């Protein structure tokens, strides 16, 4: 209905294959950016930040990551929690200064500490480390397919969580076994630690979100993305037309894990501040993110955002209505949330396997054809 496409044509291939080929969509996208960068920071407060914006932004990154692996490359992973943990802990090490033990002249082990790295780069490095780990656990994907692989990735989940429980080096030998984010700044503004401004942390995460979205889009629109999708849709045919399955799958694992790692790093350093691996990055996290992309829409970057938003908002709403309004006990609300989420997953898989993104697409088509029905 609002589309005016007459006179909206492309004279070059880049124009034709741009992310938002339709002018109207393009403008809407710019509008969203403007609001996100120039409006929200001024009105945001701590409640909104911690209840909605931070989790939404950070989970969006994770969802994008997982979507690349599951939605684009068709390799199901249940190890997201574990990989987020890798991101979190490596970020912790980088921002506090990695310490290495070397054999001294006298045969004694001596500890050397590298200087702490700026939080921004710590997050990115954390992503890279996670990518490496991801590749490692992705190796079996060449031999194992479908849910055999899905189950196999549980190994990553459990092993990694266990690892960060037992490995003192990872949490700097702290007695509690927890990791705590020290106060760190970016461009002179504190983004981690106890005393941070809402707008600062918000913008810091937003930056990463936009970055991730753009990178993901670029990767999925070109040859790399086509390799992934080819593997997803029909791996045998893909190999016969010249796709190297191992490289395609591993690259998907790497990229996916990178984003997941970044989100893990932010989740720990910016959002929680203090983390106990078992509860922060348990198997439930893996499922949560998986649900985000199922409900949001597999193989769609927009879907990743939609799903994240949905899964973040749902509990908040339930809590506000059941606990806030009706005054029910919290645990009850939690259980009801379980029921609703579970039911939703099933319903979505039955009615709209392509999730919110597909609903959005359909609605858009209808608007473009308006007033005609077809």
């Amino acid at each position: 209905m609002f589309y005016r496409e007459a006179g909206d044509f492309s004279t070059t291939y880049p124009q034709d294959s741009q992310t938002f080929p339709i002018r109207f969509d393009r403008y809407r996208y710019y509008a969203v950016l403007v609001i996100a960068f120039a409006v929200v920071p001024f009105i945001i407060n701590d409640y909104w930040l911690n209840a909605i914006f931070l989790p939404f932004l950070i989970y969006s990154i994770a969802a994008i990551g997982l979507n690349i692996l599951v939605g684009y490359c068709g390799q199901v992973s249940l190890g997201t929690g574990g990989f987020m943990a890798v991101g979190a802990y490596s970020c912790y090490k980088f921002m506090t200064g990695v310490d290495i033990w070397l054999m001294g002249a006298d045969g004694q082990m001596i500890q050397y500490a590298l200087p702490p790295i700026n939080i921004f780069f710590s997050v990115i490095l954390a992503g890279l480390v996670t990518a490496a780990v991801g590749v490692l656990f992705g190796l079996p994907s060449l031999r194992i397919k479908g849910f055999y692989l899905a189950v196999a990735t549980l190994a990553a989940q459990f092993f990694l969580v266990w690892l960060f429980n037992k490995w003192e080096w990872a949490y700097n030998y702290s007695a509690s076994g927890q990791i705590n984010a020290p106060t760190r700044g970016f461009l002179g503004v504190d983004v981690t630690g106890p005393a941070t401004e809402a707008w600062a942390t918000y913008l810091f995460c937003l930056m990463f979100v936009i970055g991730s979205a753009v990178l993901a889009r670029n990767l999925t629109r070109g040859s790399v993305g086509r390799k992934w999708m080819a593997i997803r849709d029909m791996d045998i045919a893909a190999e016969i037309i010249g796709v190297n399955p191992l490289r395609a799958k591993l690259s998907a694992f790497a990229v996916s894990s990178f984003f997941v790692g970044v989100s893990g790093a932010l989740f720990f350093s910016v959002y929680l501040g203090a983390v106990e691996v078992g509860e922060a990055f348990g198997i439930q996290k893996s499922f949560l993110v998986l649900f985000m992309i199922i409900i949001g829409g597999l193989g769609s970057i927009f879907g990743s955002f939609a799903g994240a938003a949905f899964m973040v908002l749902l509990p908040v709403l339930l809590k506000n209505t059941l606990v806030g309004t009706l005054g029910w006990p919290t645990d009850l609300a939690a259980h009801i949330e379980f029921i609703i989420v579970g039911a939703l997953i099933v319903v979505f898989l039955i009615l709209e396997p392509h999730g919110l993104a597909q609903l959005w697409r359909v609605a858009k088509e209808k608007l473009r054809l308006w007033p005609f029905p077809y």
Partner: protein
Amino acid sequence: MPDTTSQTADLTSIPALLARNAVRYADRPAYREKEFGIWQTWTWADAAKEIRAIALGLVNLGVKRGDYIAVIGRNRPAHYMAMVAAQMAGAIPVPLYQDAVAEEMTYVLDHCGARFVLCGDQEQVDKVIEVRASVAHIEHVIYNDKRGMRKYDHSHMNALEDIKAEGRAAEQRLAAELDARIAELGYDNTCVMLYTSGTTGRPKGVVLSNRNIIEASKSSSEFDHLRESDEVLAYLPMAWVGDFIFSIGQAYWTGFCVNCPESPETMMTDLREIGPTYYFAPPRVFETQLTNVMIRMEDAGRLKKWLFDTFMDVARKVGPRLLDAKPVGAMDRFKYWLGNIFVYGPLKNTLGFSRVRVGYTAGEAIGPEIFDFYRSLGINLKQLYGQTEASVFVTAQPDGEVRADTVGVPSPGVEIRIDENGEVHYRSPGAFVEYYKNPESTASTKDSEGWVATGDAGFIEEGTGHLRIIDRAKDVAKLSDGRMFAPKYVENKLKFYPNILEAVVFGAGRDRCCAFVNIDLTAVGNWAERNNIAYASYQELAQHPEVLNTVQGHIEEVNRSVAEDPMLSGCQIHRFMILHKELDADDGELTRTGKVRRAVIGEKFKDLVDALYDGSNEIYTETEVTYEDGRKGKITATLMIRDAAVVPVAGQKMAAE
């Protein structure tokens, strides 16, 4: 006219205009074509280079001054460029209808004596090779699309690309020669020769000089304030004068961009993508489009349908007034504004008319409600009256004085007079030079003072000064009792009904009028579907009693309206039948531009005509038809004949007593 000549002294030929545009609009788009998924674009600078290269190539190929170069193919930039290139080389381009049947093409190619023929693709080449057998003077065939051409004998054949390449290579050698030829071009050189798809007899080659084309383009462009930023979609046959004026004359004069669709099938989507600002279409196109809109809306949900109906009512009320900048109440303005959001805007968008600034329709009369529909949407659709001999423009409707039943006031620089027996004559800078190799018809149409007979009967409305066309002058005849018989006038009224595709009215020299009717398969078929009436074929549907009733209803309405005009009241239809086949250009029943050939039809279906008048109620008939692939076949049918109620008028009473 010396004055205008002096004004545009330096711009007295298309190549001259090109040279100007190549500088003034160097980086503006001159041509676009949807190919390989995107709109390939040529700026005026590019176009100038391309065209020059082709021109050199032609000279190199041995094109001499005054040669005729035939161009056969769909609307493509390369073809337009080739025509201009031909002019540069001193030759005269002769665009032909690509869907012309071999024998038609043979005649034209033979008549114009073309030494060179440019073909769009293999299909056209094959035709020309066939023709070449009988037409000796065709020396060389140039083709644009290389697909499937590799196996052909190339001793007298080239791809346009190669010509271009050779041209570039020959730049050094032939530049001087070419420049000389370009310099020679003046107002009085022939610009183009166009064959009129004569409604009767052989097509005639209308010779149009640079003066004709450029003056016509100039004045019409100013008339509608066309600018270099305008966009047109070139989809009508290149051999038709209109396309030449829009896509070359006006385009080169104002420097706007000509867009060519990817293929006839994708025409509608391409139209939508480009969203032209200046648009021409014959009434047929608007008609079918409206029919489609209505059919598609039939299946819309309740809400959408309600929105559509309510707001279309609003539009009909205030839309045209707004267009003509007449006073409109605030409430209505608001309603219209809403409607624009919910209906008109999206509708225009889906039809591709969002950006249309000036839209024209011509060729035949357009149904008032069709015309009003588009105008009420806020599309500035107007009518003009013109013909090949006039380089299109005789009259046109100025903004703000647009009506369905007139064809407007004389275009700038055009004088009009109506002679004693009602025929319209005009004199204008656009008036053609002559009919090629045909002095006698030239003499019979154009007199010594340059007055040209249009062959149409009409009159100038008192007060408004608008011209109204009744019919072809020669078709305006008398009934046996001497009353006026203007078949076209009635046929048009009939054709305004969506159910009726074509109508042919007989009555010249007879005591009363009878008619053939063609039903519109889309509209009627759709109606049949919704009333689940099963039908196997066009004929079966055509003879369905329900259909006959509907058509009879339409005819009787028309009779009533015709009766209102005492001058034409004799033209009421007493009996009619629905034909068993659609009238078709391939069977010679219509002209290539889709006008009915009354004589031919009267001859071909003599048995049916007689049946109409001998009072029988049905008749069995056999007819030969030509299928798309050229095969011939026979169809047989038994046709119902119905009587239609007529309004008794003074004239008849007297005749009765």
